[in-house]
């Protein structure tokens, strides 16, 4: 009986002691290692975010401390600003170009060069090259390409004895010229995603489709594309988030002009907040951008990437 009691108590006591010792070993580590990371994250991420939100209620030029509380006026000014509306439209255009042109193009190229054909590796490298380039460098290169006096476009025009176009100086065309650069710059990245996705597809499924007599297009539509679903959704996600952050390529290309026709949200923040020393206004733009980013990212993940 006593042995019984002892043996029945044993299994109860063991996990208890185990849990306690686990707790003992966990807390010192937590106490020792959490504060530095927490401190860094708080100082460098949480605090600036809170500060930006706080400044957005002030009319403040950055000198001294903010004193002139103006409530929601900065936000009213943002939504009344035609350049901000244009920036929103442009961000939308970039997303659209990303989904309708860039991703299909990337997918098409990926399906062509993911199979082991001769030279596939070289093409992969070539297509991926623009993505490796720094955004600012790409912007400067394309500024030169588009130049009507000395650039490639100007050269081609004068070869055909036509008046050289100045696309980046034309309010109606400049944004499309930039979209071209965006697609050129980032399709390689999406292509790589797709190649990885394609390689993960089980070959036997495609073989089965072959045996069933499916045509190439049927195989793509009914087998490859559904199995690539999660990659496509991820690709769109990157496209959307990347478009909201587009800044360093636009600055060397047009700087947001002419007439604010190529402003994105971030260039708008920089041009109207930072360079004009309207720190309060700029912070408000930052808050709007942040809310938009977070809402988009989380709702997209919830709705489209739920099962991935």
């Amino acid at each position, binding site marked *: 009986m006593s042995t019984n009691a002892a043996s029945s108590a044993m299994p109860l006591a063991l996990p208890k002691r185990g849990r306690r010792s686990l707790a003992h070993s966990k807390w010192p580590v937590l106490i020792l290692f959490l504060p*530095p990371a927490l401190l860094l994250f708080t100082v460098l991420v949480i605090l600036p975010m809170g500060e930006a939100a706080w400044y957005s209620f002030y009319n403040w030029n950055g000198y001294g401390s903010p004193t002139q509380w103006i409530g929601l006026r900065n936000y009213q000014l943002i939504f009344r600003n035609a350049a901000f509306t244009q920036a929103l439209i442009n961000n939308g255009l970039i997303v659209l170009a990303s989904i309708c042109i860039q991703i299909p193009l990337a997918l098409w190229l990926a399906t062509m060069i993911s199979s082991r054909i001769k030279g596939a590796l070289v093409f992969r490298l070539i297509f991926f090259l623009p993505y490796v380039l720094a955004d600012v460098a790409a912007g400067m290169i394309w500024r030169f390409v588009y130049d009507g006096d000395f650039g490639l476009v100007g050269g081609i025009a004068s070869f055909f004895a036509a008046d050289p176009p100045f696309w980046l100086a034309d309010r109606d065309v400049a944004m499309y010229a930039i979209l071209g650069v965006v697609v050129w710059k980032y399709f390689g990245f999406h292509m790589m995603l797709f190649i990885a996705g394609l390689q993960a597809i089980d070959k036997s499924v495609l073989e089965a489709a072959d045996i069933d007599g499916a045509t190439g297009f049927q195989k793509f539509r009914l087998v490859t594309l559904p199995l690539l679903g999660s990659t496509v959704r991820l690709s769109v996600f990157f496209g959307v988030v990347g478009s909201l952050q587009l800044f360093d390529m636009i600055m060397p290309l047009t700087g947001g002009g002419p007439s604010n026709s190529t402003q994105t949200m971030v260039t708008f923040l920089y041009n109207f907040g930072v*360079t*004009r*020393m309207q720190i309060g206004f700029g912070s408000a733009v930052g808050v709007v951008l942040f809310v938009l980013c977070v809402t988009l990212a989380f709702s997209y993940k919830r709705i489209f990437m739920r099962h991935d």
Partner: protein
Amino acid sequence: MSSTTNKKNLLAASALGLASVLMMAGTASADNIIRWMHVEQVPSTIALWNKIAKDFEAKHPGVKIELQFLENQAFKAKLPTLLQSQDAPGMFYTWGGGVLQAQSVTGALRPLDATMDANEGEWRKSTNPSAIEGLTFDGKLWAAPSKSGLISFYYNKDLFKKANIDANKIATWDEFLSAVKTLKQAGITPIAGGGRDKWPLHFYWSYLAMREAGQKGFADAKSGNNEGFAGEAFVKAGQHLAELGKLEPFQNGYLGATWNDALAAFGDGRAALILSFENTPATQATNSTTRKGLADDNIGRFAFPVVKGAPGVVTDSLGGLNGWAVTKNAPPETEEFLRYMGSLDVQKALAKETQIMPVTRGASEAVARPLLREVADALAKETWHQNFLDQDLGPNVGAIVNDVSVEIVSGGVEPADAAQQIEDAYSLERK
């Protein structure tokens, strides 16, 4: 496996955290180091500054001067934060105007009047009064004047001859417009413009507004009288600019062209005119495709024309006014150094070798190049020196002036709306 990598990451993160804390604690500065922050990019100018600093150090043992360079745009963006930190420079470059005024009210700067007035006002007496006046706010001088400037038209003599235009006969805006038309008819691009940078086109609106409003009208607008900047004179200034825009006087693609592109267009002889700084003879050459640009004897200069019947006169000039501001915690020798920088010999050396328009009386005789000499003479006769509006009206209103100048020229906004936009923004700045 995963737990060890996690622990490693944590360790790395905490080490990083510790390092950054140590770094923050490690900043301290010695008292007698004057840190001199500037935006100058010309190597010969910096070399001369270094020499001036060395000479001063030799005469003042224990003082060290360190030059610190920041790129123009980065400088403007960083300065607000820098001035409030322990890393504030001892003295820094300023364009005067609304920005300097904003800095002056925060208590981050030290006024220079005491040093100016020492030795019976020796320094003050030796400096051009218009330069001192331009950097004075609320009765105190907030920066030591370093150089002045003048915006005027520079033209290509060959191209003017080809179009059969006599530049000496361009005195009014109407005469200027007809010269532009004549140039166009002769198949010559009349003006080089840098619309992408915007401020190069703000010279036009500024000058037209100065001509239409006159010095008194301008002061009235600043204090909000006669509808401020929405008043009739400023609408008219916009209308004159729109007239010019309708003639399509600029080179192709000027809206995407930077200031350097515009200088290149002028220096290459692709455009006949440029409304530009006093240093144009030098900068048109360095920016031209050949790096040689136009020869000095091929460049002529004339003042911005007047508008018939308007109060502004031809000797009212628009141009830069720069100085060195001293920060609150700068070493006490900083003022002494600036006085040295403003002394006649140093200003003469600067005028001769860096081709600036000096602010010390009598220093302009060191200006040798005829095209610069002409500017120095014009500055000596000026009746009103207006600092650039994008400085004078502060960064926000200034940016709006730049924006609307481009929009008026390119037909994007009506002159009356443009004037109203400026007034709306400036009304918030009037105290």
